[in-house]
């Protein structure tokens, strides 16, 4: 097959003509990453569900849900502030976009700090990766691995928000780049919507 076949109208012409789904490459790449990361989180949550279902003495250590409720409120609200940042960027309001992006990053930092505080409280009660005072030792490894993976995503998102925000302000990045980062941030929020009921609320002490 000649080069002309590939570029003008050969058998593969339909595969090379224009961006897939009329979506720019960077945005499509982010969607592909999100699909892959969904599989990662889903695998963790399904494995957790498998173990929890098959283990009779599964602990229910959570007495107070104030902290996790506050974390949920902050993360969902940060999705709204991210939207406001993107909206400002699309309207050409650079300072507004930067302000909302940094507010989103600040919300992410508060979320992470609340998470770490909760971890420290649980560790203080004797919970480690392999043992805890309430039941099977599998609980600690499941809890820390799932929430840790999510916390890693939040931390990476905060760093990305700061970096992209600064570079957007300096003109190196455009509003579109903020929008793509926004997809990632909303995805982190969506994952939390499943982590809360599965890892926290179903393990509430009654």
């Amino acid at each position, binding site marked *: 097959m000649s080069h002309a076949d590939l570029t003008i109208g050969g058998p593969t012409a339909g595969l090379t003509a224009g961006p897939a*789904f009329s979506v720019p490459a960077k945005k499509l790449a982010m*969607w592909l990453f999100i699909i892959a990361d969904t599989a990662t989180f889903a695998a963790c949550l399904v494995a957790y569900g*498998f173990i929890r279902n098959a283990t009779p003495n599964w602990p229910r250590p959570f007495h107070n849900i104030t902290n996790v409720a506050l974390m949920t409120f902050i993360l969902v609200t940060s*999705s709204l502030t991210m*939207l406001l940042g993107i909206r400002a960027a699309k309207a050409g309001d650079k300072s507004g976009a930067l302000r909302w992006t940094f507010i989103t990053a600040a919300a992410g930092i508060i979320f992470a700090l609340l998470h770490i505080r909760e971890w420290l409280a649980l560790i203080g009660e004797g919970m480690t990766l392999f043992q805890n005072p309430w039941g099977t030792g599998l609980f600690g490894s499941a809890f820390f691995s799932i929430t840790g993976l999510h916390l890693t995503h939040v931390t990476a998102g905060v760093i990305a928000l700061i970096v992209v925000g600064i570079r957007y302000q300096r003109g190196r990045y455009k509003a579109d780049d903020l929008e793509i980062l926004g997809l990632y941030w909303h995805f982190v929020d969506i994952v939390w919507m499943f982590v809360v009921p599965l890892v926290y*609320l179903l393990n509430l002490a009654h």
Partner: protein
Amino acid sequence: MTTAAEHKSSGIGKDLVVYLCILALAAFQFVIAYQNIDASQMFVRMMIVAIVEAGLALLFFMHLWAENRGLLWFVVVFTVFVLLAMQYGWTDSFRLSGGVPWAK
């Protein structure tokens, strides 16, 4: 960049409504956690609420609803397929909890 023309032209109102809906649904999950029901029922109810929350965020926060329909179907079909395929091992989990009847 976005093909989400609706997103560009619409005001903050819709985003705010979606945000409030998601917050309300999240609060509802906490209410379910305190209901005096069977754990499996609780799990089902919480998952239904979480799926609705995720759907709202996906369609309106991530503007998938306003994107090219091909992208929407690509994301939904591939993701749902992978999620369903992962449910393959549940029978073994119930086998373990039910006294290992087939391993003897």
